């Protein structure tokens, strides 16, 4: 299943809801980590740099991580 998932991911046919949720979870972890490290809330660019993604992705994914998006995810994750 790992192979198949990687394949699906590579060809970009993975649903936005799912991909964003994954990035969103990474953002949440990285935010906690940097907050401890720096003793303050990290800026959006600091998060983006640390995760090697764009600030655009941070903004979009942070929102997506908030709530479960679909029955599909409930079943398959």
């Amino acid at each position, binding site marked *: 299943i790992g192979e198949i998932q990687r394949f699906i991911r590579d060809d970009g046919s993975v649903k936005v809801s799912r991909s964003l949720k994954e990035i969103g979870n990474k953002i949440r972890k990285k935010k906690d980590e940097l907050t401890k490290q720096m003793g303050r*809330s*990290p*800026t*959006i660019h600091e*998060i983006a740099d640390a995760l090697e993604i764009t*600030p*655009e992705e*941070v*903004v*979009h994914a942070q929102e997506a991580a908030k709530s479960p998006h679909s029955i599909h995810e409930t079943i398959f994750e």
Partner: protein
Amino acid sequence: MKNEMTVEFSSRSENESFARVTIAAFISQLDPTMDELTEIKTVVSEAVTNAIIHGYNNEEHHKIWMKCTIDDSGEIELIIKDDGIGIANIEEARQPLYTSKPELERSGMGFTIIENFMDSVEVTSSPGSGTTLHMVKQLAKTKTVYN
């Protein structure tokens, strides 16, 4: 130098999330902290939810406007406006815990949250002529503006 955007969207509940991302995307040009970003998004949630639920009684075919102006100093001016039923007694509405819809299990804390996260909040409203929130927030430090 000022940068400005105005967005108009349908009074549908799924657009609360859309409005949150839109403001976050615009504000991110000032490189806010994640906490500042969360605060502004929360303000947008509360104001947009109020417009939908109270202003438009959950009717989905109306319009909500959000206008934001930012400048290099990190000042954010935010206006959220509906053309809904309006508010008769603004002072009462702004009281913590006041809600006109207790049956919906509303907390009555929307305005209090908004006031808490913004430096200034001005409410213009009257029955039949909609509600406008005019808010200002200065980000904590002057940060580099990324283009």
